[in-house]
């Protein structure tokens, strides 16, 4: 029975890891994506927080069963596997893309004199209700997304 529990634990840990890894694998920047792959990546990202949590619970139960009936030979790897599932459960709640491209913590605006830009730097300029704002393309190329509000109008600025 212990072997069965251990095998189940391995399968569960693999499933949890796969769940979290799948979106990263499907959405690699230097590979093409099909619509089906994007859908699969979305589903994995959408459900992995819940799925990994459920798998963690199952893993904990299996660990308890193994713990009672075996020695350290099995207890230690079993505990390690459950730790792995716990890590995936945490990772499922993170957005890895934000590690590569951190979002702007807050939007600070300065006058054109203080902007510190060169003449040839490109900007995305917008005017809402007479209020003019410029978003340097160099910033947008890194942060990718800026949420802003101009004259009461919520906007999302991307490049």
């Amino acid at each position: 029975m212990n072997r069965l529990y251990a095998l189940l634990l391995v399968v569960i840990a693999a499933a949890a890891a796969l769940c979290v890894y799948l979106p990263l694998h499907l959405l690699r920047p230097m590979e093409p994506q099909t619509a089906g792959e994007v859908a699969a990546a979305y589903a994995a990202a959408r459900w992995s927080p819940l799925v990994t949590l459920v798998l963690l619970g199952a893993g904990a139960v299996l660990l308890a069963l193994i713990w009672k009936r075996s020695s350290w030979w099995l207890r230690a790897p079993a505990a390690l596997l459950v730790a792995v599932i716990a890590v995936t459960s945490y990772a499922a709640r993170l957005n890895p893309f934000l590690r590569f491209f951190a979002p702007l913590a807050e939007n600070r605006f300065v006058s054109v004199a203080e902007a510190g830009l060169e003449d040839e730097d490109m900007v995305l300029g917008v005017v809402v209700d007479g209020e003019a704002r410029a978003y340097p393309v160099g910033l947008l190329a890194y942060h990718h997304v800026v949420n802003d509000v101009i004259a009461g109008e919520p906007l999302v600025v991307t490049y």
Partner: protein
Amino acid sequence: MWKAAVDGQVLHFELAGINNQNFIMRDAETGSWWQQVTGEAIQGPLKGRRLELVPWDEVSFALWRRERPDSRVLRADARYAEHYAAADWDQDMDRYPTVVPPPPGDPLPPRELVVGVEIGGEAKAYPFAVLAERSPVVDEIGGVPLLVVVGEDGKSVRCFDRRVDGEALDFYRLPGLAPLRLVDARTASEWDFAGRALAGPLAGRELARVRTLKDYWFDWRLYHPQTRLYAAGLSSPGD
């Protein structure tokens, strides 16, 4: 650039992934995934919805500062200074291959910069190199007579509906002048890069802006498969 709301609900976005080298963003309120270049939700509860586009001006800082000296500018975060792109980064991207293979007989290299215009379902791409050489370009898309003009900085591109009182005007550049000055063939009025007539019989009139997208050819073609290509008077695919 879009209004960050759907059905009155304000949405907050973050980067969520990449799809054929155009990025995906996710809204925190519903978790839906949105394609950056189209503003359309491709997955999640809001799938199929489109964000309302807000017209923007992609211009050099020199030009923007001259036209809008009172503008506020988003400040860089010093912590990420090393990551911020230099002025010509989009040309540097030439080094990176595209993931969607180009079709045989593709008229442009995949990472050729183009200015894309879409009117009434008809799309056309103007290679930036051709525009730089031939500006101001007079053309027509979807029944709308257009003027595509490159600023004196050689980098900013704007597109206008070139009709005044229902009549389409032809434009020429006054050579050697900076800031840019155009003259129309009918009245010889003088126009600036903001599409405003400064002098002459049409002084005070303003041309309507037409939205453009500066993009890589491969990306523009992916989302506008039937696009035509401006080839400086030669017949283009789809003609």
